[in-house]
């Protein structure tokens, strides 16, 4: 078992994304550092478009996370509805 992580710039735009990750991934640990929010999760971490849309009440294009994405680790499995980080191939 090893961690995956993803980090965003800490701003108004990335807040619903972070809230959605916390809601969808019970094991996720949120670490705040100046200007940055890093989220660690054991094994895998999923970002769901539908959860972000519930937070904001507006349609969301998952590609928009790249505007505030700083770094991540893990293999990426993504489509229009979700982005999952894990170490599976």
């Amino acid at each position: 078992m090893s961690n995956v992580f993803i980090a965003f710039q800490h701003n108004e735009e990335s807040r619903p994304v972070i809230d959605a990750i916390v809601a969808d991934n019970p094991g996720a640990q949120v670490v705040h550092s100046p200007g940055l929010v890093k989220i660690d999760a054991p094994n895998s971490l999923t970002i769901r478009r539908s959860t972000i849309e519930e937070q904001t009440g507006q349609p969301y294009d998952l590609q928009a996370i790249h505007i505030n994405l700083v770094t991540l680790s893990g293999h990426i499995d993504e489509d229009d509805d979700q982005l999952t980080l894990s170490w599976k191939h």
Partner: protein
Amino acid sequence: MNIDLQAREITPLRNTYDHVARHIGGDKVASRYQEATYGAQPMVNFHYRPTWDPAHKLFDASRSKIVMADWYVLKDPRQFYYATWTMTRAKQQDAMESNFQFVEQRGMLSMMSDALREKTLEILMPLRHAAWGANMNNASICAYGYGTAFTAPAMFHAMDNLGVAQYLTRLGLAMGDAQTLDDGKQRWLDAPEWQGLRRLVEDTLVVQDPFELFVAQNLAIDGLLYPLVYGAFVDDHVALQGGTAVAMLTSFMPEWHAETARWIDALVKVAAAESDANRALISQWAAEWSDRAQAALAPVAGLALGDQGPTALSEVLDQFRVRCKKAGLAL
């Protein structure tokens, strides 16, 4: 010499304003929507009553028969405050601009038959005046309603209606000239098919209760008018006969109608769930105003769709009933 650069985290002492914290249950990080909405309604220190309405305070919840313990529960599911609303509309405006460009560059409007062009203008041009009525009514909801969560989106809605009227104006000018707009106004004033709708719009202009006006204009009238005109007429009728350009130049309207319906339904649902008295009132308003809207739209449906008019209108009415039932109304 070594310079050691260190990042130091400064944690804020408070996450949000006290008046926002009271609404969201403690000092949590609040969204911009919450900060722009909660606590913005003036509630106290009204020393003088307005001379134009001495029976009420300047901001007075009792202008509506609807009773809410807390008017801030009428939240907008789209979470619109000024910035999010303008950004959303700016994006849609860009899309509409490129639609206009696409249609004009290819001369798509001149590919329509004369009869279809006439029919389109006959139906769409008078609706500029209906949209203006909706603009006035929503401005009135904002002026006399209570609670920023309810009134602020009503003002956005008012400006959106003005936008709809402007898109119709541009469509008229693209398909004709200034005379086209005058002809539309003349039809609105004189043509027998339009007098029912005109009467209905003019009657709503003097409705005093802001929530009744909200139900009448936004739920009942627009809830039937938009699916009938932009769904059954433009998308299903005009577009199929070679008028795709018209569907492109009015694409904002059905999109906007679907988006705002979420807001309208959410408000109706929450207000009706507050008490049985509210539910009965809103149901009664929805039934009365949708009956009137149906009667007013029947000749318009006939004018637009001929024999298929009554079928199209009854389909629209069925969808409307389903929508009301979902919002918890008894129709």
